[in-house]
């Protein structure tokens, strides 16, 4: 009798407990990035650019050379890294507060210039790290510490759909929105993240994957209830799919 492992964790994923809250899906997003880089055989030449938010310690969990960018500026830093080291695979890993609020200018111009970098954008509809303030992605009616009565269209505007905006820019080769709330969606997310890195590897242009994720702590929900909210509230407003694919290859 012998036991064969079905689960295999890539080596680049450091074997260490994370600082994330119970049920926080940053952990799943980290693993999918690690799997994609491993599958494509590019771990040794990858440079990560981490951002400001709960995932600031990305370099503690992925055994990659990493540059820590100031809040929102990861796409600008990644631009410099990629231009200095064109043979490197360069990606940023950013939250919604980081990317869609303070870093809105950097992400738009990086995509528009068609920088050959990949952006992993984890949208959990709040500023997680600082205690759950409203983000540009906070859903209408969603209560946060800075909109305690719920986000209001007249006062704060509508939640921003980043994947659709990025897809509309000239330099974007690949753009998708995925979720990690179900087994099926995790498999699709894995494929999308792999596609995004493949497009960079092929020199096709800028690639972007928005990952819908939970922040159970700041949503004031149990991890399982938070996961259900992804299906009932997030996906209806932030539809999943591929919004730009310059080669129209693998569907996700």
């Amino acid at each position, binding site marked *: 009798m012998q*036991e064969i492992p079905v*689960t295999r964790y890539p080596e680049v994923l450091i074997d260490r407990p994370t600082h994330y809250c119970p*049920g926080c899906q940053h952990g799943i997003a980290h693993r999918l990035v690690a799997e994609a880089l491993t599958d494509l055989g590019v771990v040794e030449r990858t440079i990560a650019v981490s951002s400001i938010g709960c995932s600031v310690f990305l370099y503690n969990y992925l055994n990659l050379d990493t540059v820590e960018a100031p809040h929102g500026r990861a796409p600008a830093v990644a631009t410099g890294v990629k231009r200095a080291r064109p043979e490197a695979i360069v990606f940023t890993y950013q939250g919604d507060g980081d990317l869609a609020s303070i870093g809105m200018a950097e992400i738009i111009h990086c995509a528009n210039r068609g920088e050959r970098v990949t952006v992993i954008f984890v949208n959990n509809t709040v500023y997680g790290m600082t205690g759950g303030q409203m983000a540009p992605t906070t859903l209408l009616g969603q209560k946060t510490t800075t909109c305690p009565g719920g986000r209001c269209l007249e006062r704060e505007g509508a939640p921003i759909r980043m994947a659709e905006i990025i897809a509309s820019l000239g330099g974007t080769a690949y753009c998708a929105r995925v979720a990690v709330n179900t087994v099926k969606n995790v498999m699709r997310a894995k494929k999308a993240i792999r596609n995004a890195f493949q497009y960079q590897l092929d020199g096709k242009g800028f690639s972007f994957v928005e990952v819908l994720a939970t922040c159970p702590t700041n949503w004031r929900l149990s991890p399982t209830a938070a996961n259900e909210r992804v299906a009932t509230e997030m996906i209806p407003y932030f539809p999943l799919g591929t919004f730009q694919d310059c080669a129209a290859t693998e569907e996700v």
Partner: protein
Amino acid sequence: MPARVQFREDRCKGCLLCVQACPSGIILQSSRFNQLGYKIAEIPHERMQECKGCAFCALMCPDYAITVFKIEEDA
């Protein structure tokens, strides 16, 4: 094919996303706490035989706390 699931109890944060994902409904929250103070996930010994080895639990675990093994009988 029989399978076995191993939980790294020191890594588990008791989020129960594995419970939500398991099609066999065999993962439960234990009454035991780990060193971090979380009530861990576990499969009662007598129910392990119902495991399909699908690894859905591991796929959904944000803390890489689950390893699934398939058990193959020697030929």
